[in-house]
């Protein structure tokens, strides 16, 4: 998902009997559906995993502005431009809500930023794909925000209070994102032959990368069990991926577009669609930094950070000067 490969620091799950009293009380509180708050005792692994997960999620929201920002100046109408601008601004907000949540765990904003800029912390693989045509704005909203919603809705119930509250705010705003994307797809799919072709092409390019957003198959994700016991992960990768496919296929049919998967077929027995797995080798390559846009994305973030430095420092100096003037006057 927006946090795809969180390496757990836990050493396998302990049973309640193996835990010391503090940890046991902590786990029992989570089991009972209680929330953990910033000043509460928590195992070190819980804190570290959450910092990685929330940080990666925050970075994804921020880097995720780039592929869409790419089209703001070229939106086909003033209305589409205003909508896209509002959507991208929401994503900045999502990043900020999440950074705040991570900061309550004791990491600083600057440190997270530095770890993103140096490549030490990751962001979702999906944002390393290019947005080549206006139809991609439709496909991104429909599929990428759609996949994000699948993951974020259950995270509203996650055990860490500040994270859960950030998720509630985010989820309220996401459905606008998905709907504006689908609206673009409807316009394109019902438009001229050339527009229909663009819409199909966007779906072709984003389908498998969207499926990758849920992370590797359950049989290959070794870190899930502890995260699920801590309720910082609510569903397995495959569960969410299946749910996404089941919801999206009928929407594609409505658009009259074809999912680029010849094996895709409704399975009467299971009541779900059978579908082809994405190319996991490609996924791991993109995570490693070898996707089509990794270099460009990180360069853009680094440039913004470097060129904003004088603004950050200048405003801080100005605020300090104002403060000392005020104190001198008193």
């Amino acid at each position, binding site marked *: 998902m927006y946090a795809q490969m969180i390496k757990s620091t836990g050493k396998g799950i302990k049973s309640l009997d193996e835990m010391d009293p503090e940890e046991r009380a902590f786990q029992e509180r989570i089991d009972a559906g209680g929330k953990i*708050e*910033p*000043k*509460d*005792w928590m195992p*070190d692994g819980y*804190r*570290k995993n959450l*910092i990685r997960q929330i940080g990666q999620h925050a970075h994804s929201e921020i880097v995720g502005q780039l592929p869409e920002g790419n089209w703001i100046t070229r939106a086909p109408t003033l209305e589409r431009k205003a909508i896209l601008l*509002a959507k991208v*601004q*929401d994503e900045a*907000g999502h990043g*900020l*809500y999440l950074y*705040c949540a991570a*900061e*309550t*765990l*004791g*990491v*600083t*904003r*600057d*440190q997270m930023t*530095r*770890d993103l800029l140096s490549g030490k912390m990751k962001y979702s693989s999906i944002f390393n794909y290019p947005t080549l045509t206006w139809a991609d704005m439709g496909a991104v909203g429909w599929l990428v925000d759609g996949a994000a919603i699948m993951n974020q809705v259950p995270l509203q119930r996650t055990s860490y209070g500040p994270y859960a*509250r*950030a998720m509630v*705010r985010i989820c309220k*705003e996401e459905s606008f994102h998905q709907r504006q994307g689908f609206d673009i797809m409807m316009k394109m799919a019902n438009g001229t032959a050339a527009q229909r072709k663009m819409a199909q092409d966007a779906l072709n390019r984003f389908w498998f990368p969207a499926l990758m957003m849920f992370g590797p198959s359950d049989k290959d994700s070794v870190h899930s069990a502890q995260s699920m016991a801590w309720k910082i992960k609510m569903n397995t990768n495959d569960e969410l991926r299946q749910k996404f496919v089941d919801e999206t296929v009928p929407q594609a049919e409505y658009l009259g577009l074809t999912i680029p998967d010849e094996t895709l077929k409704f399975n009467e027995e299971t009541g779900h669609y059978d579908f082809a797995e994405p190319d996991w080798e490609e996924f791991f390559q993109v995570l490693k930094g070898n996707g089509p846009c990794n270099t460009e994305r990180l360069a853009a973030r680094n440039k913004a950070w470097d060129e904003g*430095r004088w603004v*950050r*420092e200048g*405003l*801080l100096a*100005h*605020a300090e000067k*104002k*403060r000392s003037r005020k104190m001198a006057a008193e």
Partner: protein
Amino acid sequence: MSSPESSEYDGTEAAPHGKARSTEWPLWEIFIRGQHGLSHRHVGSLHAADAEMAIKNARDVYTRRNEGVSIWAVEASAIAASSPEEKGALYEPANDKVYRHPTFFDIPDEVGAM
């Protein structure tokens, strides 16, 4: 609210007061009052160089959809908070004062609504 100063988290190279912090704007906690007469409610935090900027940023971050008509910004370091260890001392005395709840008193049905 965030308090890197009191955290034991040491998973990164930057200590809370280390170099990485030197240009970081202070953290502000944001409270918003909605339109329907409820009190200001904590909605989250943000970084800003001063109070004026904190309020401007809060407008952009927390009221993009008319969530509020009034904003309070408080520097996080100025907030005093109770700690979880004090929970017993602070809240348990309330448990044996059940007479503070109206349901403690049985009023006969004949008396009517009260």
